[in-house]
């Protein structure tokens, strides 16, 4: 019993130790990159899941915040010389503050305005990046000063940096899940009217969840700008990034702590392989189309995601009682 509890709580340490140790065994550059990208996607998906999974509000703004993070970090680096790896958390804060404004506009009411506004937000940021040429360099993009360090260590640095962000995101996700705040978000997803009725300030809850979600997107965008040493409106707002956050979360299991992580660790390597294997003339297009197909298929046939589906297979629960039970028993049996 006790041992089981320890395993239940401490199991993440095992993969963590492995992931920390991996670079010491001389991972080649390709694998380092692969992990870096996987961590980045995992952290962003965990972030997306906080608003999209816990609270159930589909956000398309996280891509906008990824790009915004890239540009803010890139501009502060090139104009002020502030090193991105130090400013990234602050860039995230900037994104979160902008998210608060967007949330205030779109999350005061229930219903569809959120998805519309978040989509519009992503356009607007991209539009500004493209058209404020004097600041952003327009479509030519922004070349950033290189990190002056050993190229071998450079790979390790990004690996550990994003591993750290990923761990932080998971810790935050767990923390939220166990808090009153997290319960509130889930109540909002289940039945917003009831949540409101039970005294939850739903607007504030949703806005805070959205801010946290966008913090991770902003940080990831900032770090990625340094990783590429370059920012441009196409790369910073690549649709496939948004799509991936969503598909990974959905595949893993929306609304769970580990689902998005699982989804990212499955999907990113698969996609890298696919893109590598496809003829380069149409790789991007086929990649996009396939991810779209995967999204539709998951939504249609496995909307609960891998984790929950597996859990249901493994953990045998007594079948839910739908049949009539005496009144008092029925009410007390409610969760």
């Amino acid at each position: 019993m006790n041992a089981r509890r320890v395993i239940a709580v401490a199991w993440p340490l095992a993969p963590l130790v492995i992931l920390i140790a991996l670079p010491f065994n001389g991972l080649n550059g390709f694998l380092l990159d692969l992990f870096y990208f996987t961590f980045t996607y995992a952290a962003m998906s965990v972030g997306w899941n906080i608003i999209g999974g816990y609270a159930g509000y589909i956000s398309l703004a996280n891509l906008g915040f990824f790009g915004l993070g890239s540009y803010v970090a890139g501009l502060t680096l090139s104009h002020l010389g502030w090193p991105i790896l130090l400013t990234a958390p602050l860039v995230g804060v900037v994104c979160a503050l902008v998210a608060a404004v967007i949330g205030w506009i779109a999350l005061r009411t229930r219903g569809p305005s959120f998805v519309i506004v978040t989509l519009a937000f992503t356009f607007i940021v991209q539009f500004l990046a493209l058209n404020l040429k004097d600041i952003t360099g327009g479509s030519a993009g922004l070349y950033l000063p290189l990190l002056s360090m050993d190229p071998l260590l450079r790979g390790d640095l990004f690996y550990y940096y994003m591993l750290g962000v990923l761990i932080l995101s998971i810790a935050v996700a767990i923390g939220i899940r166990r808090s009153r705040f997290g319960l509130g978000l889930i109540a909002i997803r289940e039945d917003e009217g009831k949540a409101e009725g039970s005294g939850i300030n739903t607007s504030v809850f949703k806005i805070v969840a959205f801010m946290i979600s966008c913090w991770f997107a902003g940080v990831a965008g900032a770090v990625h700008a340094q990783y590429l040493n370059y920012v441009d409106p196409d790369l910073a707002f690549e649709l496939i990034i948004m799509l991936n956050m969503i598909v990974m979360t959905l595949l893993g299991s929306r609304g769970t702590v580990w689902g998005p992580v699982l989804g990212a660790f499955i999907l990113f390597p698969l996609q890298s392989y696919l893109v590598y294997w496809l003829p380069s003339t149409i790789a991007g297009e086929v990649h996009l189309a396939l991810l779209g197909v995967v999204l539709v298929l998951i939504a249609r046939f496995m909307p609960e995601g891998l984790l929950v589906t597996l859990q249901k297979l493994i953990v045998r629960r007594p079948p839910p009682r739908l049949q009539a039970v005496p009144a008092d028993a029925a009410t007390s049996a409610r969760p």
Partner: protein
Amino acid sequence: MTALLEVEGVYAGYGTGGDILQGVDLRMEKGDYVCIIGPNGAGKSTLMRVIAGVIAPRKGKVLFEGRDIGARRPDLVFREGIVTVPQGRNTFPDMTVWENMLMGAYSIRDRALVKQRIDMVIELLPVVAEKRHVRAGLLSGGQQKQVEIGRAMLVDPKLLILDEPTMGLEPRIAKAVLERVALLRQAGTTILMVEQNARLGLAAAQDGCVMELGRIKLRGRGVKMLEDPEVSRLYLGEEAGTDITRRNQNGEKNE
């Protein structure tokens, strides 16, 4: 002989919640006119929804002319000949009164018949003609109720279900509606009605049922129940307290 409607041991509720109906039995022969009374929250509307197919029973059966309609969709129940006017406001608010009428006749293909029936409704409920080009959502609550009732009368149902049809109507119209219902019944329509104005309802109907805590407690001749001191005390609001609360709750629903 099979009854027109047989509700047998029905349990039902909403979503994952507990059972609201807890073993309802109700039998109606062709030509019956039954009025259900009972306190707020007893499950009267829930029972109407089960019969109309809006929610499926968790246990028990709903038989109509011997066929099990328990799991059937509302539109198919409608096509069996059961027409329901639910509690509250149920117009199509952004359609004109006239279009609301046409929606009531949605299932009738014969245009001449539709015209004839609408004329009949107009005679009974002049508001339908007066406001024919007005959007239904702009009418007063009582006017909307009249539109709904008119809409239900367009088809010639085998069973007409009216959930608090007189709620929010001025006394004159309420009386006219109940008279019209009585006429429909004479013409052979079977009627199941929920009525908060228990005196009016029991006087109009042939049978009365008292519903409480998800069960039908009592059934008898409407007029007899009116005279029964026990029924009067418990359900007809002879006790000032209950009467007032009931009125208030009704008042809130009317807005």
